[in-house]
């Protein structure tokens, strides 16, 4: 007999569970469907004993279940108990595979075929997705075929096959190889998907014979072989058989997006990180189908729990105020004598076009990630050369953008509705102008991460910003004093062109058809000398390439390649020549630059090793670094005083591994943060604990870090690690005079065993809080350790290669 529930909740994470609890409490007929055999699988899978953080502290919790800072086991225990006490109708082992129907009559299909009817559906399936399975005959539910690896040290003296070529596969394979014979199975002929650090790791390990690799091989079937496994694979040379003890398949997860789309929910853009558009009641474009929690773009437990509560209220028709209302009120305190929060939201949308296309829910999110600034006339908003990357919109008043540092006539005035600061946001580099309030202003300063989310989700926001940005970039980088008409005609020919890492912008010998203005990323310039491609120079964002061929009317004299994902503004030949004709000044500047380039090229041709060094540094992070730690190994006496200094100035934990990392021509790049222009580590930090300072340093706010490990995984240079607090040590004098304690530096064993405090992410913060800057550099007795920005590469390389 089928029952029609008022609400079916899919997924029992913090969001779904809280919704179930609220429904039970309110006496609404409901069912909570969970794929696994326990509640809240994401949290269930956290590392044992993990301290679960209840950030943000200021956000009140509104849920029938309790949640506060605590150990994973305690929290899960509490939730299990409260779910039982509230008599939530949970159905485990019920993976929902299909949702059809419409409001009032949805039908949910559960794996296995059972159907469930409900008037409303709440999707709370999180973002973890489904692990991809091997899916070959003999592999289903085989106890020796696993898709996860908790502790590599658990296995010893086995033959283990690791299937996959991504970061997880590589990390598992290398960790297992310490105690086991490991064969890694790679479908293709190389490890292209892995990040640089892991790529180095796996190639080195294979070279050294620490583990074996089967390239271009695909699993076909499994057969029993005694109590072992016979694994049949298809290889380039036909079928192969390997007998092994265990198979660990790390094939990644299938993002939930396709399932969600199959339910009829639309995403505004193709970008994989785009979020579905929701109404203020979390309702999707399918009426009666609601989305909450991580899937809706709210990455924290408390947010998910609050939404679980709210969504059930909304379904009942209760218009509760969102739990984050007090936070918004706090932020906009200064304006609330004139507006209520709701009025303010409407006023912002009608004044500021960039935000016009947002749903109210999206706008709330953006504003929660924003600050209100009310500068007086004459007050500075930000300075040229700062590394800040927030985005400003003008709500009231007017600001002056000082494009030229001296000439006040070139100032650009911006009034209500306009925006600025997008250049820093886009390029990840220093601010290109100083901005001053020319009248008393109300400005909304939005965090980079909120803007990135918007840009990725909403193509319209991206277009609006890009349109203005292109013009401003042309003005800033090329032609500050261009007339309106000229600018318009140039804009007509200008195009945004993006290049992937290693993609070629143009090749030596090509006809010169236009100029590229690099707005994000960076490029290398190289030439063929003899039969080798020699790197001549490195061009960061904010510069242009390709002008030489146009000015001189000759083919391209060098090849320009994107060192990393790069976006450019492309001006066609005619447009650029027009610029030159109207701006004799620009022509002079370019002629002079070409002279310098020619001299430099001759110089570099004589010393190809310098080019190799540039290539090496660019690859090891120079392409996106604001700052790199480099050690000249011909001076380094391996005293590790740099590491000790880092540990001593950072709570006993070194954020730098001196010995690890690659070396070329005696220049060693130790494992230490590059302070990227667009930090990968920031991409997916649930509590937004990673920040960038005015000077470009990327740092972690220990107060808000929840220890999820995302940044550790996302950093391509492997410079973040998770660590407990270091136990206290006796002072320096006790050690110097009496030999007490471990002495200066990180006592790795003690830190590893400490289990003291939370296990949080640590990374180099450039000693931003220490007077005098980088302690590692200052503590190197021989001057081997230096920190440089890419702009300084040249002086460095010249020095080494004399």
């Amino acid at each position, binding site marked *: 007999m089928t029952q029609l529930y008022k609400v079916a909740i899919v997924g029992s994470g913090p969001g779904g569970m809280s919704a179930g609890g609220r429904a039970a409490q309110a006496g609404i007929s409901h069912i909570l469907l969970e794929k696994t055999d326990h509640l809240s699988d994401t949290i269930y899978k956290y590392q044992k004993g993990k301290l679960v953080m209840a950030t943000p502290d200021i956000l009140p919790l509104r849920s029938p279940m309790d949640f506060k800072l605590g150990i994973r086991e305690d929290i899960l225990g509490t939730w299990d108990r409260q779910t039982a006490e509230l008599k939530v109708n949970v159905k485990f082992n019920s993976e929902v595979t299909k949702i059809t129907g419409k409001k009032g009559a949805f039908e949910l299909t559960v794996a296995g075929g059972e159907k469930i009817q409900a008037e409303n559906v709440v999707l709370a399936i999180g973002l973890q997705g489904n692990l991809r399975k091997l899916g070959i005959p003999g592999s289903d539910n085989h106890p020796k075929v696993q898709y996860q690896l908790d502790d590599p040290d658990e296995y010893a003296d086995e033959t283990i096959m690791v299937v996959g070529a991504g970061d997880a596969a590589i990390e598992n394979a290398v960790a297992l190889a310490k105690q086991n014979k490991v064969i890694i199975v790679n479908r293709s002929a190389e490890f292209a998907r892995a990040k640089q650090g892991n790529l180095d790791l796996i190639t080195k390990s294979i070279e050294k014979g620490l583990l074996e690799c089967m390239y271009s091989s695909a699993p076909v079937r499994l057969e029993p072989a005694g109590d072992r496994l016979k694994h049949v694979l298809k290889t380039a040379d036909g079928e192969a058989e390997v007998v092994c003890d265990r198979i660990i398949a790390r094939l990644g997860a299938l993002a939930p997006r396709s399932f969600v789309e199959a339910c009829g929910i639309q995403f505004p853009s193709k970008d994989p990180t785009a979020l579905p558009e929701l109404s203020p009641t979390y309702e999707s474009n399918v009426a009666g189908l609601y989305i909450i929690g991580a899937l809706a773009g709210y990455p924290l437990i408390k947010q998910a729990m609050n939404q679980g509560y709210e969504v059930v209220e909304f379904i009942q028709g209760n218009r509760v105020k969102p739990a984050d209302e007090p936070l918004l009120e706090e932020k906009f305190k200064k304006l609330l004598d004139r507006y209520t929060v709701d009025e303010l939201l409407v006023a912002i949308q009608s004044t500021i076009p960039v935000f016009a296309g947002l749903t109210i829910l999206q706008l709330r999110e953006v504003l929660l990630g924003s600050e209100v600034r009310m500068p007086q006339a004459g007050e500075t908003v930000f300075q040229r050369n700062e590394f800040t990357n927030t985005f400003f919109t003008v709500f009231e008043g007017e600001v002056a953008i000082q494009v030229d540092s001296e000439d006040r006539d070139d100032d650009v005035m911006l009034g209500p509705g306009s925006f600025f600061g997008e250049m820093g946001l886009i390029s990840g580099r220093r601010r290109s102008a100083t901005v001053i309030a020319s009248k008393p202003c109300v400005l909304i300063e939005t965090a980079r991460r909120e803007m990135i989310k918007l840009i990725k989700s909403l193509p319209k926001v991206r277009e609006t910003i890009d349109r203005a940005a292109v013009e401003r970039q042309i003005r800033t980088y090329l032609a500050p004093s261009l007339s309106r008409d000229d600018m318009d005609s140039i804009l007509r020919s200008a195009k945004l062109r993006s290049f992937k890492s290693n993609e070629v912008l143009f090749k030596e010998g090509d006809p010169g058809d236009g100029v590229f203005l690099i707005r994000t990323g960076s490029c290398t310039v190289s030439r063929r000398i003899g039969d080798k491609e020699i790197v001549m120079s490195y061009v960061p964002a904010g510069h242009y390439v390709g002008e030489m061929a146009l000015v001189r009317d000759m083919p391209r004299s060098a090849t320009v390649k994107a060192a990393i994902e790069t976006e450019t503004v492309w001006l066609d030949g005619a447009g650029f020549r027009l610029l030159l004709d109207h701006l004799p000044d620009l022509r002079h500047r370019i002629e002079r630059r070409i002279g310098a380039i020619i001299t430099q090229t001759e110089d570099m041709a004589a010393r190809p090793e310098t080019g190799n060094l540039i290539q090496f540094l660019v690859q090891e992070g120079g392409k996106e670094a604001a700052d790199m730690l480099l050690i000249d190994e011909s001076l380094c*006496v391996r005293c590790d*005083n740099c590491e000790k200094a880092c540990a001593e100035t950072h709570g006993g934990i070194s954020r730098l591994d001196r010995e690890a990392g690659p070396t070329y021509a005696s220049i060693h790049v130790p494992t230490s943060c590059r302070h990227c222009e667009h930090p990968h580590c920031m991409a997916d930090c649930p509590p937004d604990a990673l920040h960038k300072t005015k000077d470009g340093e990327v740092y972690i706010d220990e107060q808000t870090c929840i220890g999820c490990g995302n940044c550790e995984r996302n950093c391509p240079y492997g410079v973040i690690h998770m660590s407990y607090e270091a136990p206290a040590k006796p002072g320096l004098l006790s050690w*110097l005079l009496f030999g007490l304690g471990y002495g200066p530096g990180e006592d790795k064993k003690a830190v590893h065993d400490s289990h003291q405090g939370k296990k949080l992410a640590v990374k180099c913060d450039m000693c931003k809080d220490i*007077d005098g800057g980088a302690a590692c550099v200052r503590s*190197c007795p*021989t001057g081997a350790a230096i920190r440089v920005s890419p702009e300084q590469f040249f002086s460095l390389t010249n020095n080494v290669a004399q």
Partner: protein
Amino acid sequence: MHESILAFRGFKYLKLSALMVAVTAIVYAVHQPTVGPPNGGTALGYALGTLGLGLIIWLAWFGVRKRRYGLGKMLLEDWLSAHVYLGLGLIVVATLHTGFQFGWNVHTLAYVLMILVIASGAFGVFAYLRYPRLMTENRRGATQRELLTQIAELDVKAREISAGLGDDIHGEVMRAQEKLALGGPARRQLSGRDPNCPATAALKRVGDLSLGLPVTDAEKGRALIALLARKVELVERVRRDLGFKAMMDVWLFVHVPLTFGLLASLTAHVVSVFFYW
């Protein structure tokens, strides 16, 4: 961008130290003691003695300054460059202080200790300039741990292969693996080699023994010898690596304890001249 401690900031401290030495020497040459020959007891003697003592305390302070991480805005390299040049200049200052009056007493003991500290320091500078580059070249991009893992890997393979080649060869391989020691006594570490290296010996003996292998095993025998030869090469590299590091460290075992001795004997010297002079 990178500058060695000697060349630091255009030899700034070499110039400063040379100036100090020159001034001291000129004053010494011009100065006419009221009684007796020049010595530590004259007015100039006192002045130079005080300057010398000040320098020594400051030089010894380097051991603390080096570990005051994050404090003080100067680069440690700045300090070390000054330490080296002013430390060398000290020879002249202290010698002129004595007026070349040496004897078998605590004063001369202090002087001798000072000279030893300075000499060891000079060797340190030599080591710091010479060995880092050799070390990098020897490592060829690998870390020491990686070299050791490679050796361990070769060991496993060698055991596997030799197990099928008869007890003599297998025993030889096993014994050599057990006996292999990297590091060891200071003298051997410093030399960067080991004349009685078990790995080298095993390579030779297995080479001899494998001549007696049946034809069917010859292939395996060659593979084993190749493994052992690679291991010898790696082991020699690790030894050289340890040797270079030891050379960079060893002199500090003279430099630092003698610094303490020097401070003690100087205290005795100063106290004694005040009490008994």
